[in-house]
């Protein structure tokens, strides 16, 4: 009967699918394979493409001979491993947790990666790192800021980027410094964020640390990330009349809020944003003068070139590979992530997981040998880099200027933020 034949065909197809997948690999390549999981399709595909270019650039520099004041760069491969070259293999997480797990499995079992790096979106980093934990492979996360990732007690998980807790701490440290230097009076704080993992993580940290430091959290607002209007949210903020508003939003909602604040005359002394929508090129372009004075935390800025002259050079190399787009917080962190991993493998002198993990634990790279505004790169037992810190930029004359910490600031803080222009 027609369908019976089809059912048997189905069974046969399954059988064939099983055989070729045995995955027998050619002789072990001289190269050292690093597996990278990124959102190459789906909503974050554009960001994923940038991260991919930055990671590839780092690998090429490690395999190249041009030297820069950066770890593991310019020695034509890894010196302690007979100058073996590094090869990075990318797998697409589509921004979905289960797909990220499948990608991690492929990189470990089929591509025989000695270590993994990835995965930008916190939920995909969670599942991919669990696969690495199960197989006992070091996993380095350069770019997910969800605080929970390093509280899971994973043995093989390391994170170079500061997390939302650090950034919230930065905000309050910044406000304390301003009070000391410019008599800036901030007491009442509004915490606003989209209701996904990003907004919730940032919002919780901002609220807890704020209360802990004696600030008055006058309102906590979570809104559906896909909302097409924010009238109610703006009215709630207006009713709370905060001195400062902390925002965690993507571009569409960020624009809605800023226009709402202007229309409703919500005039805080400062708007402190967790980058994302507030650093999207579309933000300043859409708001023009109304974007003036907004503060945003950042992990990287081209302004710190005086700390490490490699910064502008790497920025130039990156623009060549990525359509002239400058190095930003995400791409810079991923670039550094690959170097930290390469450096660890080199110091391990072997590609066994334990050796690499040992080298990672022993990592202590001084801040000026990185592109980042960090004290240094050193992991605590939960795998979190304790030397990391964010910087704070302010939009002045349409440009993002580093204003804090003061030792690397290039512009003075404009306080309070200018009134809305009508």
């Amino acid at each position, binding site marked *: 009967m027609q*369908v019976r034949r089809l059912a048997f065909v189905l*069974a046969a197809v*399954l059988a064939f*699918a099983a055989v070729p997948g045995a995955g027998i690999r050619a002789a072990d390549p001289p190269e050292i394979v690093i597996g990278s999981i990124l959102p190459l*399709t789906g909503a974050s595909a554009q960001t994923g*493409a940038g991260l991919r270019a930055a990671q590839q650039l780092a690998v090429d520099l490690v395999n190249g001979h041009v030297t820069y004041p950066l770890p593991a760069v310019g020695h034509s491969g890894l010196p302690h491993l007979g100058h073996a070259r590094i090869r990075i293999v990318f797998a*697409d997480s*589509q921004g979905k947790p*289960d797909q990220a797990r499948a990608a991690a499995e492929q990189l470990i079992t089929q591509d025989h990666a000695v270590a993994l790096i990835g995965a930008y979106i916190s939920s995909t980093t969670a599942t991919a790192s669990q696969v690495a934990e*199960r197989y006992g492979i070091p996993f380095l996360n350069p770019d997910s800021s969800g605080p929970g990732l390093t509280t899971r007690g994973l043995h093989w998980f390391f994170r170079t980027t500061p997390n939302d807790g650090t950034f919230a701490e930065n905000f309050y440290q910044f406000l304390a410094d301003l009070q000391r230097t410019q008599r800036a009076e901030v007491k009442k704080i509004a915490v606003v964020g989209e209701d996904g993992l990003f907004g919730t993580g940032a919002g919780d940290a901002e609220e807890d640390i704020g209360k802990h430091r004696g600030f008055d959290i006058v309102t906590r607002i979570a809104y559906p990330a896909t909302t097409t209007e924010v009238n109610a949210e703006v009215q709630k903020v207006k009713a709370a009349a905060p001195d400062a508003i902390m925002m965690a939003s993507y571009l569409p909602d960020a624009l809605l809020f800023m226009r709402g604040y202007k229309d409703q005359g919500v005039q805080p002394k400062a708007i402190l944003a967790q980058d994302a929508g507030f650093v999207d090129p579309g933000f300043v372009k859409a708001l023009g003068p109304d974007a003036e004075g907004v503060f945003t935390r950042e992990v990287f800025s081209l302004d710190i070139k005086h700390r490490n002259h490699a910064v502008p050079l790497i920025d130039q190399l990156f623009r060549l590979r990525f359509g002239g787009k400058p190095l930003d917080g995400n791409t810079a962190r991923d670039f550094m992530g690959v170097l930290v991993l390469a450096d660890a493998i080199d110091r391990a002198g072997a590609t066994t997981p334990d050796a690499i993990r040992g080298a990672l634990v022993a990592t202590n790279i001084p801040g000026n040998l990185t592109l980042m505004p960090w004290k240094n790169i050193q992991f605590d037992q939960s795998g979190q880099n304790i030397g990391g810190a964010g910087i704070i930029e302010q939009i002045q004359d349409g440009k993002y200027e580093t204003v804090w910490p003061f030792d690397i600031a290039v512009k003075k803080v404009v306080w309070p933020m200018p009134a809305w222009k009508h």
Partner: protein
Amino acid sequence: MRAHLLALGAIVVVGAVAAFGLHSQVTLELLFTFLLYAVLGQSWNWISGYAGNVSFGHAIFFACGAYAAAMLVAAGFSPWLAFPAGALVAGLLAVITGFPTLALRGHYFSIATIAVAALVDAFVRTTPWFNGANGFEEPIRNGWGAMQFAQKTNYVLIALVLFAFVQLATIVLERSRLGYYLRALRANHAAAAAVGIDERRWKLIAFAWSAVMASAAGVLYAQDTLFVDPPSVLGLSVSIDIALIGVVGGIGTVWGPAVGALIYVALAKGVALQLGGTGKGYDLVIYGALICVIAALRPRGIVGSLVDASRRRRGARIANDGAAPVAERAA
């Protein structure tokens, strides 16, 4: 009937052989995902195919199982309890949401399922014990007790058992009072009422069974992925994936969901892994185009149209030569 059982037996045997014979974790992973989505597709097929009420909110039942497993493990219980617990919650949820909505016609029901799913999503996000947007992450364990394994083999075996159960239940459905009544309701409401079929009661039974199956698949998903949060198990995109598997394969047939799942896995997972490096939405383009072609040319899906073709040929043949073949009937 016999044909189905033979085919099911063959697939179970092949699956078991592949589970033990194979070493490539990636292929085993694809096999596991195929079985999981075949179960999900079949569970959706019971309500949207056999009962004729097209659901776009089916993820809420999948989430019952997934959250049950994650929360039970977080509370220190064995994930195996999630099968009965998830089934109970999913069944109840189906009855509560199905009772008022199952009588709605066509698009009204479909949009109602989206609305219900959005309400459940809001409830899970804002109720403290579901951990809101953070969801749950299961600590790494090993062994049958914790239903977690380093190798994929055991996952495939459990999925195979679940797949076999679900297919068997569907084969039995077609030869049961529920199956006849659902077909009657879809074929002609007036005639169905005349022979005493209470639409709401029988569709609720189908809906509850459908929910229980989806919940079981949710438990397996949670134990394999070890991470559960609203967007990954409850989102509209999850419901859409489940619905599309049923459509491609063929609604109201025993083997439609399995074929749909095979295509889904081959396309969404296989292509993405291979095309992974390019960074563009190519797999979505291929997938969307395939659905459009199938919907336009073969609206009953691949298996569905085969069934129609065979039945029309058999119906026509009987009409003219009058010879009555053995009561054997396919699909």
